[in-house]
């Protein structure tokens, strides 16, 4: 049923100054990259990736009015969620690389936990040291974690795409997984294309229904909520709008 199920927030973890995780008293089954529609009654309802499965957890960054309100909530408060939607990352190969920028690390950290007997290299990019998330979570499951910050306050001072570029000169991967700003993902995809490596990217578009009816979230003829949010190289190759523009709430195009 495509209607919010209201849950009590069981516990709140502060991940950074503007990122928190809510845990709920509920276990779910989800693919990394799948998302929930999160409802604050009488305010709005917006998409958030599944961050933890058992128990269910979502991790969110304060960026505007909705996430600000989320940020104020505490354990015991009630919010609604609608089912994990969309297609997540597909586990492929024996040696993979994860490339994240900013809060894009959220579904990738969950993905890292899902791999079994796979050699994972993670490239984690953020603006500053304080924006880094889930480093310990990643370190547990990755053989290598490369950290980049835009200002060099932690790890290497470069963009995650630069780190990937360097890495691809020396190493070969079965699949590269990416989530982050679209411009970054576009570069990651291009690098993969050049090196003939399969790429899976988790895209974002403005979402309303979340289950494929309203059409709001489309990129080309792909509904991000239903056919995505994770697209593979084959799908990405066909897109003309990837990294070019997205649509805001009214449907108007906004160029990157």
């Amino acid at each position, binding site marked *: 049923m495509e209607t919010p199920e209201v849950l009590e927030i069981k516990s709140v973890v502060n991940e950074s100054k503007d990122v928190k995780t809510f845990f709920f008293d509920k276990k779910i089954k989800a693919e990394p990259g799948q998302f929930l529609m999160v409802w604050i009654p009488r305010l*709005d309802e917006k998409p958030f990736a599944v961050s933890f499965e058992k128990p269910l957890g979502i991790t969110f960054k304060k960026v505007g009015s909705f996430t600000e309100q989320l940020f104020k909530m505490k354990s015991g408060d009630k919010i*609604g969620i609608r089912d994990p939607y969309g297609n997540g990352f597909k586990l492929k190969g024996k040696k993979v690389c994860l490339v994240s920028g900013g809060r894009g690390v959220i579904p990738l950290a969950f993905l890292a936990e899902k791999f079994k007997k796979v050699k994972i290299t993670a490239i984690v990019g953020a603006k500053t040291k304080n924006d880094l998330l889930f480093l310990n979570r990643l370190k547990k499951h990755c053989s290598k974690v490369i950290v980049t910050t835009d200002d060099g306050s932690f790890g290497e001072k470069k963009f995650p795409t630069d780190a990937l570029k360097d890495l691809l000169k020396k190493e070969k991967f079965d699949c590269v997984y990416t989530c982050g700003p679209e411009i970054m993902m576009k570069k990651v995809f291009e690098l993969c294309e050049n090196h003939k490596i399969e790429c899976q990217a988790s895209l974002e578009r403005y979402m309303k*229904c979340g289950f494929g009816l309203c*059409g709001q979230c*489309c990129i080309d003829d792909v509904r991000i909520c239903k056919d995505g949010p994770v697209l593979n190289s084959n799908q990405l190759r066909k897109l003309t709008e990837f990294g070019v523009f997205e*649509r*805001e709430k009214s449907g108007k*195009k906004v160029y990157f």
Partner: protein
Amino acid sequence: MSVKLNVELAGLKLKNPIILASGILGISKKMLLSVAKAGAGAVTTKSITIKPREGHKNPILIQTTEETFLNAVGYSNPGLEESKKEFKDLSNFPVPVIGSLVGSDAEEFAYLAENVKGIDFKAIEIVLSCPHTPGFGLLAEQGTPEATEEITLAVRRKTKLPLFVKVSPNIMCLGDVVKAAEKAGADGITAINTVGPGMAIDVETAKPILDFKFGGMSGPAIRPIAIRCVYDIYESVKIPIIGLGGIITGKDAIEMIMAGATAVGIGTGIYYRELDIFKKVCDEINEFMKSHGYSKLKDIVGIAHRD
């Protein structure tokens, strides 16, 4: 026996009678194209207003029972200027694109009809029937015979395209409304818009779920109401009807056609049967016609009216 699914609808030649309803997926040319590829005989754009509209906040569309959805989208759309860019150059589009227009009064409707001329729409649909957007449709008293006549006339003067008037099931005087549309020069009636409106309250938080609180009901459960409306309209006017509301299967479509529809719209059905519902429904219609000895759709339009 070979069966023909093509129909002529107010001068439009459709390869099959199944049309994408307005407001579902029709946000961009590319989405419309994917619906055409999925087998639709024609497609309708999301309704276009003069100014851009962000619409209501989310949730704008929820499921309320297995067979019902409520929506209160609030006519979000990028507005006339953006839409002209979005839909320009439809000349090679594989099926007719119907432009759906909404305005708050006759003047706005006329302005829209005049200004979408640059777009290669093959027909215009004017929507007088939204039950849940302030300033439009029923909430702007457009569901009366008088308003219907006035708006239809104003649009008629501005366009030579086939003109469909989309009506609401939530009015008692439906017969008079469609007669007014016909009199004012409409070429067809699109029926029905959503039912109700309805409302859903989350019992955990005791709050209405939709941001706008109320929303129009769609989905399989509204089919009986849509069938009745189309049956009534068929008795009231001579112009063809696009019947929609709760159509999920070929059998549903056949029922709609027997009630009097020349073509059949599908919206919420996509939820239940994915995008290729268009092909599936056409196949099922084909199958039904074959096994029942009907050779063309024309033969069954309105036959439920025979005694």
